[in-house]
Structures are given as C-alpha cells and as structure tokens.
C-alpha cells in the first residue's frame, strides 16, 4: 500500500494569477507535437475568414501550429492586458485597441480589412423588415451587441445618426451570439456585420449608404509577445494577396 503511495508523483502546476492566463497558456500548450505554436486572438466576426487563413498559413509553414483564440474584441483585449501569451491580436475596431497603439503594446499594427453593419433578419424575413426605422417598432424583438463591444458601438453610432430609437431585448457580448439568436428565429432583427450573413442561415436588409456603418479591423503584433518574428510573418500573410483573397471571399473590404 504505502509503496504505491510513494511511487505516485504529484504534479506541481506553477500557479499564475488570473485564470485566463492559465487557460490561454493551456491552449497554447495544446500543440504538443513539436510544432511551434502561434496564438492569434481574433474578433468573433473574423472566425470563418481566419479559420481559412489559419489553414493556408499552416500549409505554408508545416512546422507552425496556429491557435485561434476567438471572442469579443473587448474580452480578447482584457485577456492580453491580464498577461495572456498572445502573439497577434486582430480587433474589430480601432477604438478597442487605441491604448495598445498609444502605449506601444503593439510592436506594429495596421488596418487590414473593413466591414459594414447590416440589418440581419431570420431567413425569409418573417417580420417583413424593410428599413432601419422598422427596428423601432414596439412589436418586434430586436437584438443589438452590447455598447461595450465594437459591433454594439457601431450599431449605436448608426442608430444615433439615423435618429432611430431602438429598445433592444438583448445586448449580446459578441456578434456571433446575436447571429445565433437570429438563426433560431428568436429575434426579429439585429444589427450584425455584412460578413456574418452568407455563412449563417439569416437574410439581410442592407443599410442605406450615408450612415456611418463602416468599421475598420486592426491587426497587430503584441510587443514582447511570444514568437514575435513568426507573428510578423502571420500578419504579412493576412495582408498578402492570398490573405486578402480569403478576406474578400468572406465579404470583408480592404
């Protein structure tokens, strides 16, 4: 009995303070097959496009395992501020990373894509929405992103500019959560990105030009992050002709 006890060895994990750091570190450690891991935090709206970019980048660099950490830009930002070992951060707007830019948290950064907000509706548009003004109809269940996240900020900017007063029934913390609830038909309408529409089972009612519905995506290499040379290569690939083609195919503008 006691022999088996002695033989058992205790694992002693090194404790680091915020749980997020441990989590991302675990994620990063997952590629234990000898390949170098590169952790890329990307806004939820980039999920599909960056999934393809990941595959294409790994095909060119067989010794590299790209780990995509997807989420609301604000969440991703907090993870990095808490010390998560992230190499590249792609945010859905400049505002989320303005202090990264000012305080030199980005080794280098660049605006690499644009997107546009649109009215997302369940397939077939059952509520018969034709314009932004319809979102103020009290009989409709309208969802927006929370004002703390990029898609919520643009949504409010657009609604303010159009002078439309919307009372959302929910404020989702990333755009994909909003899309999911539109797909389920539980919401009649929501302001989502144009790029969310093709891959989801939803339809769109485009916003008129002239409204401030455009957003710019920023990508940067985190200063002092792991694998910064490789991170730079990833960013260059995103901006290469191949990377741009993938982004364009998913509806992103330059």
């Amino acid at each position, binding site marked *: 009995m*006691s022999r088996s*006890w*002695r033989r*058992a060895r*205790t694992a*002693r994990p090194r*404790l680091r*303070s*915020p*749980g997020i750091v441990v989590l991302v570190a675990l994620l990063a450690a997952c590629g234990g097959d000898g390949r170098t891991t590169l952790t890329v935090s990307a806004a939820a709206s980039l999920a599909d496009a960056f999934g393809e970019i990941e595959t294409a980048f790994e095909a060119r660099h067989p010794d590299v395992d790209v780990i995509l950490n997807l989420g*609301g830009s*604000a*969440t991703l930002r*907090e993870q990095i501020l808490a010390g998560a070992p992230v190499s590249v951060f792609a945010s859905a707007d400049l505002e989320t990373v303005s202090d990264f830019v000012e305080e030199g948290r980005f080794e280098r950064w660049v605006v690499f894509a644009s997107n546009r907000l649109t009215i997302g509706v369940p397939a077939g548009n059952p509520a018969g929405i034709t314009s932004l003004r319809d979102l103020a109809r009290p009989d409709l*269940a309208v*969802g927006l992103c*929370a004002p*703390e*996240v990029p898609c919520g900020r643009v949504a409010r900017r657009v609604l303010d500019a159009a002078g439309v007063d919307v009372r*959302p*029934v*929910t*404020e*989702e*913390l990333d755009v994909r*959560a909003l899309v999911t*609830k539109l797909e*389920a*038909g*539980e919401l009649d309408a929501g302001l989502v990105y144009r790029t969310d529409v093709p891959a989801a089972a939803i339809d769109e009612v485009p916003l008129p030009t002239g409204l401030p519905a455009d957003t710019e995506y920023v990508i940067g290499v985190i200063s002092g992050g792991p694998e910064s040379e490789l991170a730079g290569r990833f960013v260059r690939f995103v901006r290469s002709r191949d990377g741009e083609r993938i982004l364009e195919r998913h509806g992103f503008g330059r």
Partner: protein
Amino acid sequence: MRRRPRPLTVPRVLHLAAGLAVGYLLVPLVGLVGNVPWRELPRLLGDPLVLDAMRLSAITSIGATVLAAVLGLPLAVVLARSSFPGRRLVRGLVLLPLVLPPVVGGAALLFALGRGGILGAPLYRATGLVLPFSTAGAVLAATFVSLPFLVVTVEAALAGLDPRRELAAATLGAGSWTILRRVTLPAVAPSVASGLLLTWARALGEFGATITFAGNLPGRTRTLPLAVFVALEHDRPKAVALGLLLVVVALGVLVALRGRWWRTS
C-alpha cells in the same frame, strides 16, 4: 462510518497534495480580494446598473427557488417513496442539469421554449407570451440548473428516514396526506431548508443558461453574474466589486449550512 479510527499516519506526499489543493482554492480568492478597490466600493456597488442587477438577481434567484420547491418537492417525495417503471431513468434525468454545461441547457431551453420552440411556438400563438429575453425566461433558466440541488438533497433525506414512524402513523389510521404533512415533511424539514438554500445559491450564480436563453439586457435579464461578465470587458474595478459581493453571499450560504452540509466537528 461515523466512528472511524483516528488515522495514525498519513503518507507525507498526501500532505503536499492536500496543501496544493488548498492553495489552488485559495489563490483565486486572494487574487480577487487583492484587487478590490476598497475606497471606490460604495460608489461601484451603488451604481444604478449594479442595483438593477442586484434587484434582478434577487427576483430571479428567489423565483427559481420557489419554482424549484413547487416542482422539486413532489418529485423528491415520489422518487423516494414510490416505485414505478423508469424510476432510475427519472433520477438520471434529475441529475442531468448538474453535469450538463449550462450553456447547453440554455440552448435546449431556447429550442424548446423559444418563439419557434416545440413548446414555445404553440404558447406564443395561443397567448403571445415570449419567454426568451424576459425576466421569466431568466427564472426558468435558473430553475433548470438549480432544481437538482433541491431534489437530490430532499430525496436523500427521505431515503435516510426511519420508516417506522410513518408506519406507526399509518397503523394509527392516518391517511397518506396526513402522514406526509405531519410526519414525513417535518422530519426532513432541515434538509428541505438546506436544499432550498443550495438551490437558491446555484440560481444566484447561474450564468450560461441565462445568457443563452434569456439574453443580456440591463434591468430585465442582466443578473449579477452577467453584470460581472459585462464589467470585465470595460470596467474591471466594478467586476471585482461585484465579484466580492458574490463571494460574501457565498460565504454567508456556507455559514448558514454549517453542520448540515459540511460537518463542523
């Protein structure tokens, strides 16, 4: 079981492992408390949005506890006192929300009780009632995840009850209602109380099923845990302050349960 011999020696490696476990439970708490902005605490906790979340959390957690009592007590009695085909299956079903990720529970509720759901669609057509994105929806989400705590606690207490008292009451001519009301339930009353407290605590902490089924809207479905999550995005001191509040409530629950749920020898 109760009178076990005092262990003379414990392999030293166990002390080490136990110390690690204690440390692992303690370090996050220290991290939270160490980040509390004590001076700003009154302002942060007095914020109207925070007060809204507190009010909502009180409503949803108490609502869920009441609903769990109404649904769960009869279920516990039936499970403990009668045998019927499929009883084991029902017991497994009761345990399911304990092991199911809450976000899955929330999605399932959405597909069942949402406007387009198997139960929600006829309900919506008949009454115009929409459960997702409503406070009632938040109560239902919390009930789904917290119900097992009540059923399991009460059923275990009933199973541990000496059946002779109930039999004696029956021989004295008491009907099944009278026995339940006058003999059985009073005997398990302390367990019912601690079950209700556990249920309430679980309902108070509910996050995943709520945000998935009921969404996130200040004043309607943004309960304290959702408010913590939102605050983490842009206002960390507020998130920490709310976290501290929930830790204090949790400690209060443990103090209230001392000697019942965990032994204080």
